């Protein structure tokens, strides 16, 4: 076991190990599969506007607009996943930063007439700054306490945005001076896609670095992380800040997308959507963040196929009002039955295929015997 002398038997009473070469190959295949899937996703997304114009004709632009929203949600999902899936901080506060990003953008670019690129950057930096201020005290508590404290943050943010709207005498913060380029669904789509792809690429590198390992170390064993020199306070705060900044960015893009900011951006419903994305997609998985956003983005489309109002017995149900409930249900089901989320479907399929081939082989040998 512990000796390098070749004469000694290998006494580790272990199951047959995933031997070096096979283990490495398996790991390589896993990486390759993820990358191939991402690449395919990327190609489809770049070609999407053209495809949509072909498929949907007149309504292509409208459909594309929905897809832009999915890319924005993917950013928010990655942000939540870094904080909750990697650094293991069950914060429910990201919706506060989503609203903050949206309102800041509406104020800076809409009211103050600043350029949009500047407004996006400021919204992101301001979210990071508020993340520092809030994250410091919030991360003194952990687990369920952190979840509740940060949920309070969402409610506070929502009230403040409501107050701002009421004081200004409006329903929501409309943006009236959106430049033509951002009103065009094609250019908006490509802008959002570009930002999302860059952020995901940076995230991919980051999560494999010393910083990413520190986050996972905290998740897997906080005691061991400390004993091996990880400043857990700093890295938790860093995750909180990065998450806040990315969510603020997503909020700013969302406000451009919707041409308005609205206090419902910071709501419990929004929190549940963020959570549903990473749990259904896959906790601690970059791919899962994108898949979760896709799923949550397409769910309303699927629900749109259900006749509405749906009549069950004497009840008449407006299907669209059920959306949050359905996210909640999915969250629950995913946690119970698919804790690794959509990102693990590849493994499930692999296992299924292996079982089928084994079954096939044994059936064959059975037939031959």
């Amino acid at each position: 076991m512990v000796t390098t002398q070749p004469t000694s038997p290998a006494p580790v009473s272990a199951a047959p190990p995933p031997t070096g070469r096979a283990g490495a190959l398996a790991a390589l295949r896993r990486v390759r599969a993820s990358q191939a899937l991402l690449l395919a996703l990327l190609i489809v997304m770049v070609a999407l506007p053209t495809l949509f114009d072909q498929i949907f004709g007149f309504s292509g632009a409208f459909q594309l607009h929905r897809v832009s929203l999915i890319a924005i949600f993917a950013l928010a999902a990655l942000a939540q996943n870094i904080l909750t899936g990697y650094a293991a901080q069950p914060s429910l506060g990201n919706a506060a930063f989503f609203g903050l990003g949206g309102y800041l953008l509406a104020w800076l670019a809409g009211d103050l007439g600043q350029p949009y690129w500047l407004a996006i950057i400021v919204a992101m930096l301001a979210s990071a700054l508020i993340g520092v201020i809030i994250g410091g005290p919030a991360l003194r508590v952990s687990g369920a306490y952190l979840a509740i404290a940060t949920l309070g943050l969402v409610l506070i943010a929502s009230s403040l945005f409501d107050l701002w709207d009421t004081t200004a005498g409006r329903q929501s913060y409309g943006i009236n001076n959106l430049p033509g380029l951002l009103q065009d669904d094609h250019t908006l789509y490509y802008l959002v896609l570009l930002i999302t792809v860059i952020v995901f690429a940076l995230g991919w590198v980051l999560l494999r670095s010393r910083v990413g390992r520190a986050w996972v170390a905290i998740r897997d064993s906080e005691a061991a992380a400390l004993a091996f020199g990880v400043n857990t306070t700093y890295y938790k705060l860093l995750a909180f800040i990065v998450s806040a900044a990315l969510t603020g960015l997503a909020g700013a893009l969302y406000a451009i997308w919707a041409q308005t900011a609205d206090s419902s951006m910071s709501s419990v419903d929004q929190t549940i959507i963020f959570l549903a994305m990473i749990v259904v997609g896959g906790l601690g998985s970059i791919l899962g963040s994108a898949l979760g956003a896709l799923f949550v983005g397409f769910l309303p489309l699927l629900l749109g196929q259900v006749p509405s109002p749906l009549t069950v017995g004497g009840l008449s149900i407006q299907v669209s009002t059920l959306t949050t409930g359905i996210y909640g249900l999915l969250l629950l089901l995913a946690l119970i039955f698919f804790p690794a989320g959509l990102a693990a479907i590849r493994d499930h399929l692999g296992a299924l295929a292996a079982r089928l081939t084994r079954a096939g082989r044994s059936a064959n040998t059975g037939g031959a015997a």
Partner: protein
Amino acid sequence: MSATGDATTTQQALLDVRGLTVRFGGLVALNALDLRVREGEIFALVGPNGAGKTTLLNCVSGFVQPSAGSLTFDGVDVLALARHQRAALGIGRTFQNVQLFGTMTVLDNLLAAQHAHLRANFATSLLPIGPAIAEDRRARAHGRELLELLGIAQYANAIAGALPFGVQKLVGVARALALRPRLVLLDEPAAGMPQTEVAQFAGALRRWRDELHVTFVLIEHNMTLVQSVAETVSVLDYGRKLAEGTPAEALANPAVLEAYLGSAGAQEAAHAER
């Protein structure tokens, strides 16, 4: 082994524990404990359950705050440092319940263990090129070397949490060694180890000490291991040091026999010897 005693007094100790006292409520877990561990030795800490052995380790790691006493490592006041700053001194440890980074691969565990020696920050970690990648490559090579040395290289890419317990314990030792430590604290490394492997493990410990120039402090119940590998044995009971010396000296001490076997048992042992 009388030189041992002389060396303790003349040579500065690597780990120097003086008057260390830890109270949990009314319970005194460590009672004015004094210990000196010399550089390069294998030092065993034995004693019944609840004697305060792991408490001492947790004082070194900072998970327990002593109410009195001092703890210095190579002259540095360990207690004045934050918990995460202590690894950088060169103190590695294992845990009784292993505490691996279970979702990482074995090799990534060894990379994470080198955290204190790597310099990459948030900004450099965003780039797929540059110093962060280069230092990661060196850290990975160091990790592979250690896995080779410990004979577990075949598990490098396995997910640590899915490995059999025996392998996990070895990965825990590899992780502690990956830190490039001067001192490694091993918390019951032989627990659950088949008796046939203990002798091999003892040999391996000596080899790692010699090749990696590491000092080991070993908490162990397995007396075969302690007797075959330790140069100094310290016996604790109720947070006090009962005896210290070579394994033969320390374990033959009447107070030690009494603590382990009860007073009747100690008398019996004494009779048997006569």
